[in-house]
């Protein structure tokens, strides 16, 4: 039993998960209201269209048909090319609606097609006489409109019924099945772990305003969004801090801190002004005051984990997280006011879940926002999460839950509609957030995990038979990364490692780590990457790799616990890299030191603290005594050690020594 394991939070996992509702509703009350409003608007438009078609002349009929079906009036006025162009414009508007929150795009194209087709009613035609109309287009337009609406309704209803039909079987499974205990080994970092850590340190310890080694591209949605790279790296280093170097926090604290500070760089959050302007018609650049939970929730969670892993209260200082717009306007926040902004957004949202991009509320981001409030409560004794929790669960279970236990990924807060955005298979998932509900809703986490892992233990057991002498002789196929820059097998390895751990196949997970390293290693160092994968996915790989025995859900629940035993406080960077600093008994200290990016041949000073005052200590490398020293009255000491290669050291007090 290690000190880290001793510090796992005491959260009783429910023995059985809640069953799925046997008579699920098609949509929750708020969603129903939004959908009904949308339907009402469509009905009004259709009624107006019919009135124009029935009662008007050629112009009015053209406009009416375009209201029935965007561009339909162009078919009537014998302008098929304009009809096709209208649908090209509708498609573009649809993409922009999703991608850039252009909510007014489709209505604009729709209305414009009505206006233009009316204006064109008596205009010239291409190869046809001026003023020609195609009367046959009228029934065609209405058939197409009915088909479009019908297919939407049918798709929704068929999916709902398909899922509803599974409920009995799924509930039977939930009531009877058992899952193996997840594997939570205390790992000793290998060479690749050290390479990854060194890469992460070099990436994060460059000046705060520099971003060498990050992937830059569009900053709205895609795989090149820097804010997510920063989030994921913060999430990856936090478990490393508590699992591997709890007794040497100095280097990793700086790395974690810089990741948070980089979030305040204008280049990282400037995208919000554009989205806010387009989607909310609001020119305020403040990235926290309205919507944008993909930034406020994610980074709020990142700040919590920073505090929980390092104990630093730096970001509790007023103004410590200040955003500055390009005209010098400042938006000053700290850890507390940041979370209050998240809470305010939750509170004022009719759906409870509030949008990422204007008009789009994601279950994943709102779960991470919930994690953020919970983490703040744990760290600071507030009640933000407990105040919100009932409403949040209602939104999740009534508005987002699908009959088969999946949750919809996305919902339009304007129309109530959801669809598959292509981000997750089928546009749904059993658990979400970066902690899979494990901290904010452990019962739902269990249910989701059980549903997610149906059949997985058997598959993993099959894979485990391929492990020979701890090695897995396997190569996984490469797949495209989300930003389409490269293909990589790292993502598949990450999923395999996580899956193996979830079903208790610890040996398979370790073998998969080694096999993945063999397949994906590049041998390169920062600013290049040690594995053949982009920054975001590399960070997620590190997160999975290092999240044992303590994962971030546990850390979020646990909060800050000071290290027990001697602490290696000062280590010269970039000369030395600390990959292990753990005390298993509160008296001794296990250390693994490696040469850093700029190694030194000369001995370097290691600054210990929290030693027994005036006690004598030995630093051992195996049986060899590397240094022997006496702690000062305040429990500090600073021996000089040469770190020219990997040094596995053990700091022990000398029994009977000066004390």
């Amino acid at each position, binding site marked *: 039993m290690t000190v880290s394991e001793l510090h796992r939070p005491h959260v009783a996992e429910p023995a059985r998960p809640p069953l799925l509702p046997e008579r699920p509703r098609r949509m929750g009350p708020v969603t129903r209201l939004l959908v009904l409003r949308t339907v009402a608007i469509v009905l009004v438009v259709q009624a107006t269209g019919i009135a124009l078609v029935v009662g008007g002349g050629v112009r009015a009929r053209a406009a009416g048909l375009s209201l029935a079906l965007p561009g339909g009036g162009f078919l009537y006025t014998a302008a098929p090319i304009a009809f096709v162009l209208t649908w090209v414009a509708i498609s573009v508007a649809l993409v922009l609606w999703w991608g850039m929150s252009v909510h007014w795009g489709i209505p604009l194209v729709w209305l414009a097609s009505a206006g233009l087709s009316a204006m064109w009613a008596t205009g010239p035609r291409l190869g046809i006489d001026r003023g020609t109309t195609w009367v046959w287009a009228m029934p065609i337009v209405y058939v197409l409109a009915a088909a479009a609406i019908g297919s939407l309704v049918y798709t929704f209803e068929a999916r709902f019924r398909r899922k509803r039909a599974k409920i009995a079987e799924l509930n039977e499974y939930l009531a009877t099945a058992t899952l193996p205990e997840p594997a939570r080994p205390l790992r000793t970092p290998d060479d690749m772990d050290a390479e990854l850590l060194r890469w992460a340190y070099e990436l994060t310890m460059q*000046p*705060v*305003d*520099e971003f060498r080694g990050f992937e830059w591209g569009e900053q709205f949605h895609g795989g090149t969004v820097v804010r997510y790279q920063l989030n994921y790296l913060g999430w990856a280093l936090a478990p490393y801090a508590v699992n591997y170097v709890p007794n040497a*926090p*100095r280097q990793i*604290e700086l790395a974690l*801190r810089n990741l948070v*500070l980089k979030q*305040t*760089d*204008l*280049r990282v959050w400037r995208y919000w002004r554009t989205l806010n302007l387009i989607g909310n018609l609001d020119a305020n650049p403040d990235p926290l005051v309205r919507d944008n939970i993909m930034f406020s929730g994610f980074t709020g969670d990142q700040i919590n984990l920073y*505090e929980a892993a*390092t*104990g*630093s*209260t*730096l970001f*509790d*200082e007023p*103004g*410590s997280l*200040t955003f*500055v*717009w*390009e*005209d*010098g*306007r*400042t938006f*000053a926040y700290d850890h507390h006011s940041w979370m209050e902004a998240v809470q305010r957004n939750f509170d004022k949202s009719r759906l409870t879940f509030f949008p990422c991009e204007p008009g789009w509320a994601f279950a994943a981001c709102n779960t991470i926002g919930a994690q953020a409030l919970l983490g703040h409560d*744990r*760290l*600071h*004794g507030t009640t933000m999460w407990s105040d919100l929790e009932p409403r949040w669960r209602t939104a999740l279970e009534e508005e987002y839950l699908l009959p088969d236990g999946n949750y919809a990924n996305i919902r339009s807060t304007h129309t109530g509609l959801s669809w598959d955005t292509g981000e997750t298979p089928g546009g749904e998932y059993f658990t979400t957030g970066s902690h899979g509900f494990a901290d904010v809703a452990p019962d739902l986490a269990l249910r989701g995990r059980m549903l997610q892992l149906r059949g997985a233990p058997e598959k993993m057991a099959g894979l485990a038979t391929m492990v020979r002498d701890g090695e897995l002789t396997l190569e996984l196929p490469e797949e495209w990364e989300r930003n389409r820059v490269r293909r990589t097998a790292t993502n598949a390895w990450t999923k395999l490692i996580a899956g193996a751990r979830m079903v208790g196949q610890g040996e398979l997970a370790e073998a998969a780590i080694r096999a993945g390293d063999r397949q994906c290693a590049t041998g390169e160092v920062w600013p290049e990457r040690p594995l053949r994968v982009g920054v975001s996915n590399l960070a997620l790989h590190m997160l999975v790799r290092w999240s044992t025995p303590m994962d971030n859900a546990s850390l979020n629940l646990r*909060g*800050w*616990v*000071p290290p027990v035993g001697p602490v290696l406080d000062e280590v010269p960077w970039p000369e030395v890299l600390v990959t292990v600093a753990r005390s298993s008994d509160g008296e001794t200290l296990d250390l693994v030191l490696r040469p850093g990016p700029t190694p030194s041949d000369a001995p370097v000073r290691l600054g210990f603290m929290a030693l027994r005052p005036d006690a004598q200590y030995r630093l051992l490398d195996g049986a060899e005594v590397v240094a022997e020293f006496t702690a000062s009255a305040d429990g500090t000491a600073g021996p000089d050690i040469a770190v020219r290669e990997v040094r596995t050291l053990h700091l022990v007090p000398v029994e009977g020594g000066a004390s």
Partner: protein
Amino acid sequence: MADVPSLRFRRVVTAAVSLAITALLAFALGDPGAHMAQNLVIPGIGLLEVSGALAVVVLVATTAAIVVWVTWGIDWLPAAIVLCSTVAAGLLTGDHAAPVTRAADELIGVAAAHEFPLVVLVVGGIMWMRTAVGRLPGLRRLAARRSRTVAIAPGLDGIGALAPLDRSRAAAIAALTGPVPSTVNDAAASDAVVTRARRIGLFARGRRGDPFAVDHAAARAALALTGQLDDAAMARFAGDAHAAIAGVPASEPTWVRPLDATLAAIALHRAGHGDASRRWAAMLAGPLALQRGHRPGAWWTPLGIRLGAAPVWEHAATSALARANGWCDDADWHVLRPRLLGAAARGTSVAADERAIAAARLWLVHVDDEQAARILARPTVHRDPIAVALDRLADALAANARADATTPDPTDVHRHTVERGDLVP
């Protein structure tokens, strides 16, 4: 407070004479006079009836000459173009030869006295428009991109890549911190700096001999501060300052640029010529004082006219240096603060922003502004030589200030990681 020059009377008289001559031309000399008057207002327009192409050529030539004048102080060039084109407008248009000839004679008699206010008006308008246009979002980016290449220079090692004037400024600022590396010394006395001074002296005033005998405040300040002015040259520097209307030498003939002048005042002050610094402080409080949040980009000595608004970084650097010497109060900081924080937000990819950030750090030595300190600590100043010089000066002054301080530094992150104050156990 030393006396500040009052040029109001001179301006009033000049304006009155200008208006009188223009009115005389317009109303007393018939058509040719009207064309001449028009040409005084907008050079070239008086020749429109003769030739549209000629009018455009004159207008373009005048514009170019104004740029040359504002940049290098060659004031006779726009004056000559305006004068010649005005005479030509009178001679070539209409059929009143005798009055025109008389008018031309009169014009020659008053030389460049009256057209300058009009030209200054045009220049002021151009500068205002440039500033206004530069604030438009799209064009601001373009303007910023134009100066981006300067930011590639790798710190003080890249001082030789700067234009001669900026080279002198960088060297002078760097020397304020203490001894400077040889690259900085060499830059201050480089051939490019000397050649610029020589050419300006020759083309603007027909001067030969010592290129630093008159004017060139920045170059002479750099040489003085890096210890490369001998006693005689230093005496000439002080003498020039004493004779100058602003208390310090001009940058180029008739143009006093606040940053160069401030550096010159500091150099003279350090050399024991306190009168220069007192007179310059009076200038900063008087003719060059803050007006609607700006200090002028330059000051034209013949009539004491403020030209344009100083770029943010120049304003910040000038006022911070002045503040460090006690020549102004904190008013500049309050108006500059949002602009400087904006520069910090935009980062250091543009030289002007990097200089503004460094100048802001210089200001922070004198003002207690924790939020600004946090924001301005983020960017890394390491490219542009002037910015690096300002940043080092800020560091040096801050180190001195910290030595006396007893309150903890709010940006000290170590304190937070050690104290671990209010976390729930």
